[in-house]
């Protein structure tokens, strides 16, 4: 109930500290047609940086886990059921993710998408069933251990370290595979210096890739909304994940920004990452994903290529049905 990862609770302190300002993100770029939505754009020219630098090499570093070859199974969700008291948030959900693909996880609000992420990243233990990663069950591993194994995520409600700089946020991610402790730091031992140098280099690369290098020293909470979303992705990439899970990264974006983000996700995949993408907007997912899994009321109702999903009557019914409920 009081778990802060509960996505439906809107009182996330980090999100509150953030400045939700969907208009001030990429609206400054001249090529983007300004939507007649009445949203104001921030006049500060420094907030205009939006374009990514796809040529920067951000390939995942070797983190000591077995590298799976392209197309093989990276992660399997196996008959996972999760109950919250009476609520069955996930009901015998099974699907798998292949190395190198972009898998879409879609479904109406409350379908259990975020909960699925939470099970995969160790936030919740499934009531029954389990998750297999690189062929081995995740079991009762702790959250940080799962991250070290190569599963990273972003959050539906932005959860940056609001009072740390953009660079520091990313550094925390890089630090996941470092081991500098008090003694190394205190005596500035070679390990500290090596890890620090390597960490800064990688963090700066990631920020440059995301087009955030000019804002490395800005506090995360002072970044425009769109930059915050990108910074979350950079921070997750910093942990060199085998599997990158993005929870509605386009939430709050206008259509042009959404399209750009999808391009970014494709670029990330091309740099050697496997992506699991939660997205509410079905049309958007169609263009970017290789395969799609559809959830409704905690159940998987469909799985297949975008074309198959588009024509699936159950999916259409689910989306239409819930949209009507939402409207009431």
């Amino acid at each position, binding site marked *: 109930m009081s778990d*802060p990862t509960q996505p439906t609770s809107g009182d996330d302190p*980090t999100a509150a500290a953030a*400045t939700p300002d969907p208009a001030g993100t990429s609206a400054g*770029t001249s*090529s983007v047609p300004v939507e007649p939505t009445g949203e104001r754009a*921030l*006049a*500060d*020219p*420094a*907030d*205009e*940086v*939006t*374009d990514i*630098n796809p040529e920067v090499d951000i390939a995942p570093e070797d983190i000591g886990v077995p590298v799976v070859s392209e197309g093989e199974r990276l992660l399997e969700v196996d008959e996972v059921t999760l109950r919250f008291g009476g609520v069955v948030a996930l009901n015998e959900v099974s699907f798998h993710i292949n190395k190198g693909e972009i898998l879409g996880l879609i479904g109406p609000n409350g379908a259990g998408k975020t909960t699925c992420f939470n099970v995969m*990243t160790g*936030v919740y233990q499934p009531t029954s069933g389990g998750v297999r990663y690189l062929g081995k069950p995740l079991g009762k591993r*702790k*959250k*940080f251990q799962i*991250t*070290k194994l190569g599963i*990273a*995520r972003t*959050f539906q409600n932005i*959860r*940056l*370290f*609001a*009072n*740390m700089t953009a660079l*520091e946020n990313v*550094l*925390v*991610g890089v*630090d*996941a595979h470092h081991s*500098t*402790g*008090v003694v*190394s*730091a*205190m005596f*500035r031992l070679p390990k*500290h210096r090596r*890890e*620090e140098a390597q*960490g800064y280099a990688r963090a700066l690369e990631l920020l440059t890739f995301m*087009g955030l*290098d*000019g*804002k490395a*020293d800005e*506090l995360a*909470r*002072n970044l425009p909304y769109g930059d915050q979303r990108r910074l979350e992705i950079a*921070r997750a990439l*910093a*942990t060199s994940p085998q599997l990158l899970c993005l929870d509605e990264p386009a939430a709050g974006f206008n259509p042009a920004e959404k399209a750009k983000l999808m391009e970014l996700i494709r670029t990330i995949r091309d740099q050697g990452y496997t992506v699991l993408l939660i997205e509410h907007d079905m049309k958007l997912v169609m263009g970017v994903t290789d395969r799609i899994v559809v959830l409704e009321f905690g159940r998987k109702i469909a799985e297949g290529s975008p074309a198959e999903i588009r024509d699936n009557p159950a999916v259409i019914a689910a989306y239409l049905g819930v949209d009507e409920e939402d409207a009431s």
Partner: protein
Amino acid sequence: MSTTTSTPAARKPTSPGFRERVTNLPKAVKILLWVLFAIFLFLLPLLNIPFITTEGSDFGGVLFTVATYVLVALGLNIVVGYAGLLDLGYVGFYAIGAYTIGVLTSEHAHMSWVVVVPIAIVIAMISGIILGAPTLRVRGDYLAIVTLGFGEIVRLTLVNSEWLGGAQGISDIPKPPGFELFEVPSIDWSSGAPVVDLDTTSTFLKFGINDFVPYYWLALGIISLVLLFDILVKSSRVGRAWEATREDEDAAELMGVPTFRFKLLAFALGAAIGGLSGALFATKAGFISPDSFQLLLSILFLAAVVVGGAGNRWGVIVGAIVVSYFPERFREFADFRVLVFGLALMLLAIFRPQGLLPPRRTVRAKRADERQAVLEEGEASV
């Protein structure tokens, strides 16, 4: 697609703050300023500067007390300011440090001070781990309650344990071994102008019972070491992990930070520094009893950190000085001490809720917020 690069310089506020101005000084000037400042601190108890020097009580002794508070505040800042853990029983570690000295140099053994101080640090650290290991797994308010209880349990144990001297405490704690290198003269202001007084001197470094200045020097040296340690550790992976944990524990964990381990580390380091401060206190006092370790002291320690600005080491030093020096300087108002203190805290909460010297992050954030407000008012029409 064109890539616009932002110019961070253009975003800098027009009037540089104190910090920026200091940072921009040439390196040689900076070093010189630091050396001058260090010499000033070293000579402070002997300068007898009017108004600053306490009239009623020995200034060397007052400065020593201030120094122990500074040390305590630096330790507690790691726990409260960096890791964001509310510790209401810090006096417990202070007491453990002091009693280790008492027991091992006077009550039950006569070991050398030089050997016992590291033991005191280690025992305080171990007690921090023992207290932290079960409690740091639970979130938030529990920790405050458990630590509050811990402080009281330590005190009650001291009162009730005959082995630890009971309510009478432990006396005859020996002085640390000294060496007499040189004498430092003091300044006499009785003629209205400063005159070097060669008759009233303090010996570096002789630990006596009348002159407390050498104890102050000892504390000053230890503070420098702890400060250096603080700076080095904070500006590393460890410091970032603490900050991330404080900002959002779940998110930190999901970014690969073993949050429990780092919280326990902060707790253990804080406890160790608390134990060290207690050991210093016992050394100078020569006598300790459970009365020296009341709950109020925990509150004062915490006040030092919060008043100064939790998370900023320079801030908490200022906080410690405020909390410990002013009551000594204005002893004539001793009857109203708590009243004035409460009033000051209220005013502070209203006008400077982040403390006197808030951490840089807060300052930067505030400045950026202001900038944003200006922009939104449309004043920045380019």
